[in-house]
């Protein structure tokens, strides 16, 4: 019973982590399509970087599976280096997300979009409307 619950929750969390990554790609792609189509108004929100962080779960799982498979070999140090790999993965995911988000907003500005003054906030992000013509900003 307990192991079934564990398997279900682990599978669900992996699916969720991949869904977050897919959403990251989807937001980036749809904004790119809006830019290419020359849409006058593009709605964006900050905090895209957070969507990459849940990938730490599949990384942890792969790490532990690989570690268990290789643990039979005495010379292999991977199981003992799990903590190091984990910290490097967290830093890389966070820094990567940060850089990609910065690139996302600079892409909009490079293509002549400007942020509107009015913005609203959610719990993890700020909604900003980018436009080529500030008269189109929402009131």
């Amino acid at each position, binding site marked *: 019973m307990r192991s079934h619950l564990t398997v279900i929750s682990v599978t669900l969390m*992996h699916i969720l982590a991949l869904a977050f990554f897919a959403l990251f790609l989807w937001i980036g792609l749809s904004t790119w399509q809006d830019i290419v189509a020359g849409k006058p108004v593009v709605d964006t*929100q900050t905090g895209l970087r957070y*969507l990459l*962080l849940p990938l730490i779960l599949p990384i*942890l799982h792969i790490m532990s599976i690989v570690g268990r498979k290789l643990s039979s070999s005495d010379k292999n140090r991977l199981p003992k280096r799990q903590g190091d790999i984990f910290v490097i993965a967290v830093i890389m995911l966070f820094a990567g997300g940060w850089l990609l988000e910065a690139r996302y907003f600079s892409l909009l500005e490079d293509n002549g979009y400007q942020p509107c003054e009015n913005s609203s*906030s959610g*719990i*993890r992000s700020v909604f900003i409307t980018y436009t080529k013509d500030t008269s189109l900003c929402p009131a």
Partner: protein
Amino acid sequence: MSNSQQLHNTINANPEELHIMPLDEFREIAHKLRDTASDNFDAGAAVTLISPAQDVLLARSLINEVGLTGRAVTKNVNGTTYVILKGYPGLRQTLNGTRYLASHPKIVDLAIGQRGVSRNLVKGTRLTIYLTVPVNVLQYLVNEEVTLSRLIGSTATDLTKIGLATLVGAGAAYAAGAVTTVAAGPLIAAIAVGLATGFTLDYLDGKFGVTNALVAALETAHDRTIGEVGRQIHQFERNLIERAISHMGFRY
């Protein structure tokens, strides 16, 4: 001690400051606050990051305690859950033993194991709620365009989002505890998945306009109940006045 002396001491023991200002002055301060807030950062989104920042600090102290390679295994023996720490106990500052009960205060404080992470998540959620609600109220007070329905609607959706993000974060901590023995794994997984869930709920809210729909529904409900009663009272008063005038024999 005389009565007046006693009264004097009582007052001095409980000092309270009260600032009274004219409405114009408050409005001026509110405008300044609003302009400063919109120029520099968004207070609403900023305060919700305090709890994840605290979690990151906790993860740091956990890594400091058990090391980067610190590993913890949870084992259930005769219905009692133990946390077994790998590595040399002599190198650790607080956790000098090799085996602790999962409910041990030292283990719970460092958010090791399911119980520790859950307690930390609840603490973080409580803090976020304590910060989010006053900020929403402050934004309502300083912004002339925000209605009471908007305040209630946005607070309700914010609290729902915070609750859902915590729930998913707890699930992630459980899953991480099942797949890895890295001591900081569940805590970091809970932070990461909680942040991503919060962002996604914001995205879905913006896309489908849940908060706006709730605000509109509240305004409609207000209009149909309190608004309707107000209109009926107004109509009743009007009719009463008209009838009184017509009884008096005036025409207008």
